[in-house]
């Protein structure tokens, strides 16, 4: 891997760190397997890109994109909380609907942003994108930490740990689910908006595999350091996302393995499957060994 590939992987890792944090919020904190993200990532990109080409200020465009993500999360939450639609299905429904909505927003399958002003274009330095992304990720991580250790954030975490007892402490589970989903999808859409601006395009198919990528990064992060302290959990998400991109870059660039860029989703899925199988396999193997002794 050369330095350009390394920096590219680092940049992608930072961009997707926000997706990872979003997935961490739903899958780990509120314990809701939310698939909306495959739709809210391109939603963020679509909203930001179509606003920017209409000469809207890129900061405002990014903000509106984030709001759009919040709304997408709220819709999934509403379907689940109000109408008792299974969480997994509610997410898929919103995600599917978002495909059409994203096309409507963009009016075409993709938008190029190459000569447009973006939030990264105020500085001309060679690594400016990387530096700005680092600052954003650190800031978001810190804000998320502050939120999750607040009274409201603690109630949110409590809901995921023991929903049955939560009402007797005055915690409204439905409200917490909505909050978690809104926040998670806001982060993912924000990430999508940043991606479009950093890479110069928004594309209708860019959302495929967003969730699995985020989940893989969460799992990679957890494998480094399994700890339930929130600050460490957040740090592991960011590091996991970067490491995941590094591993993928190495795998794709190694001549020996002979993989192509299009194999990415396959590799990611296998990575997640392995991460889920290994603890079980380990148990079976230790059991077998014990029996043989």
């Amino acid at each position: 891997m050369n330095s350009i590939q390394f920096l590219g992987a680092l940049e992608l890792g930072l961009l997707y760190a926000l997706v990872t944090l979003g997935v961490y919020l739903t899958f780990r904190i509120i314990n809701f397997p939310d698939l909306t993200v495959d739709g809210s990532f391109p939603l963020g990109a679509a909203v930001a890109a179509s606003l920017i080409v209409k000469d809207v200020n890129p900061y405002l465009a990014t903000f509106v994109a984030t709001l759009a993500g919040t709304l997408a999360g709220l819709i999934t939450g509403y379907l689940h909380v109000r109408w008792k639609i299974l969480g997994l299905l509610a997410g898929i429904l919103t995600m599917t609907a978002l495909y059409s909505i994203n096309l409507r927003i963009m009016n075409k399958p993709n938008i190029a942003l190459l000569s447009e002003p973006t939030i990264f274009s105020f500085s001309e330095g060679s690594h400016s994108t990387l530096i700005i992304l680092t600052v954003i990720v650190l800031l978001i991580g810190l804000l998320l930490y502050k939120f999750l250790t607040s009274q409201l954030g603690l109630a949110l975490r409590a809901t995921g740990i023991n929903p049955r007892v939560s009402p007797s402490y005055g915690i409204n589970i439905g409200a917490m689910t909505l909050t978690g989903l809104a926040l998670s999808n806001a982060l993912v859409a924000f990430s999508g908006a940043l991606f479009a601006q950093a890479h110069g395009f928004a594309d209708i198919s860019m959302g495929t595999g967003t969730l699995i990528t985020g989940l893989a990064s969460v799992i990679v992060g957890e494998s480094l350091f399994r700890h339930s302290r929130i600050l460490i959990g957040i740090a592991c998400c960011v590091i996991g996302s970067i490491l995941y991109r590094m591993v993928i870059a190495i795998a794709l660039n190694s001549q020996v393995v002979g993989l192509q860029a299009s194999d990415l989703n396959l590799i990611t899925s296998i990575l997640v499957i392995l991460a889920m199988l290994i603890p079980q396999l380990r148990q079976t193997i230790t059991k077998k060994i014990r029996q043989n002794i």
Partner: protein
Amino acid sequence: MIELNNISVTFGKGTPLECSVFKQLNLKIQPGEFITVIGGNGAGKSTLMNLISGEITPDKGSITLDHTQVTRWPAEKRAQFLSRVFQDPLLGSYADLTIEENLSLALSRGKKRGLKTALSSQLSAHFKERLADIGIGLENRLSDKMGLLSGGQRQAVSLVMATLQPSKILLLDEHTAALDPKMENLILELTKRLITEKNLTALMITHCMSQALRMGTRTLVMHQGKIARDLLENERNTLEPKDLIAFF
């Protein structure tokens, strides 16, 4: 004062499994009363508690608290005036959160939760004091996970959690049923002490006849969805545990 007026509850209405638990149930709980509830399986003890806590809404009848209608209030809204300790130590608290975080959650029971930090050194000092008060050495384990504690320790913390905030009624749902005899005694003593010290109104379900008579100021004997006996102080004193069984 909590009043249950003409309560009817039917489970599985309109299905072949329809089962009427309560018909025209009436109960008045005066402030400061410590009521023990005893009865066989299916007598309606838990349903009574779930009615008060808001987990079940009655088909007919009304529930009032200090003359406010709360019949349709969901459990999370009623939490502002009632606290609960559950039978299963694992179920009543948050295993994956620290003792301190559990206490902080209990402290904001029924209050608006904002973006203020959930833990602080001030709060820690307060929690430490409260844990030291129960005298089982938990005051130095604030940052330990709740899940690391034994069942008895968890119930002790649950009691502290339930009494951290003032409440109009404390509901105890067989909260010593899963404990060994030694721990059971300790928790019962603690329960008695907290209720007396804080002058709480309480409703305790128990399966133990002697506990039902020994604890509290009033005993309800439930049988097939009815309050078969409502025993007050003077009447309770003349009864032996074995007499109780004759009522159901």
